[in-house]
């Protein structure tokens, strides 16, 4: 249904409306807020998916079949650190945004 929606939105003509309404699905690049960023020690990662599940911005993907199994979309990651705090194998840590890895 969602795909259908996206398709429709391209097909339909725009019409003018009055009053307050939002008709664009958009995002701000909240990644720029970050003071610290989460980094992953892939050696220690058990690919449990805890970080993915608890990420409030929903920007973590865990791939069981990849060596770099945790992918974070830093465009939106606000650097809250919940992933690091919840990680059961303690394979993640926060590092200063402008520091060295």
């Amino acid at each position, binding site marked *: *249904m*969602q795909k259908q*929606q*996206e398709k*429709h*939105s391209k097909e*339909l003509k725009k019409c003018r409306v009055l009053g307050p*309404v*939002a*008709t*664009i*699905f*958009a*995002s*701000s*690049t*909240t*990644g720029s*807020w*970050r003071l610290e960023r989460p980094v992953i020690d892939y050696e220690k990662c058990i690919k449990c998916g805890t970080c993915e*599940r*608890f*990420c*409030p*911005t*929903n*920007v973590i993907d865990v791939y069981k079949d990849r060596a770099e199994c945790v992918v974070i*979309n830093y*465009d*939106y990651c*606000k*650097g*809250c*650190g*919940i992933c*690091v*705090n*919840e990680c059961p194998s303690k394979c993640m840590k*926060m590092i200063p945004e402008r520091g060295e890895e």
Partner: protein
Amino acid sequence: MFDIQHKSKGLVSHGVSACAGCGLELIMRNVMSVLGEDTVILIPPGCSALFSGYGNESGLKIAGFQGNLENTAACAAGVRAALNAQGNYHTTVLAFAGDGGTVDIGLQALSGVLERRDRIMYICYDNEAYMNTGIQGSSSTPFFASTTTTPSGKPTSRKNLMEIAIAHDIPYAATASIHNLNDFKKKLKKAMETDGPSLIHIQTPCPTGWRYDPGKSVELARLAVQTGSWILFEYEDGRVTINSKLKDLKPITDYIEIQGRFKHLTEEQKAELQDYTEKYYHRYIKKLENMNIETEEHATA
């Protein structure tokens, strides 16, 4: 029809300007993943309005309306009535409001909806104060917590929303916590399928308002349950299921000492809070269990 200018994994935009570590943001994503597209959401002004959007842009990919602070339930009732009038009984109508918009100013409209048995789903995300306006105390602010209008700690305990909902004898009501998302999602699904009003009351840690390190949002939610400060249970047609019945409660200090809003507490006050929390927890668990005994007795009688 939304002009999709941003690829997102779900129905919620990734870059919503909720604070880093916001419990509400985690809740919203989980709610949307369970409820899906066939949902209309009603949001009052407040933190959740960040998802309504600003100007021409929205952070949600579903139909919605931002009403007033006190009429979220009423707005939902209007949508429901109109959908019914159009023969649409499948769409979920979701009222999504904070504690202020629910237990303070919104209580009357909520009570109306619950009493009329309007088929709407109501979620109260409870961050325990008016966070969007600058952390003022609400009737859901817990005992002793400091806010900008209870600077030396709130002298009274919180209002019990679940008791109020149950007093309306609605078909489904549940509490939830962000540390147990499977439990939350299970409850969301039940609430969504309820033929009548359903209510979910979910505690929502707020790093800004509770003054803690944003990485600890989930941990705090867990500690709230483990210390007995937040009780997980479900109410289904008169039957109660307690999801967090604990033998031993963790000391309250585990929960409050990592939050700035309890920093002003003296050792004496901490002891008082410990005592209060324990007593309330046990008394309440007993009360819930009694509810079941009464329900069963009635069933066998």
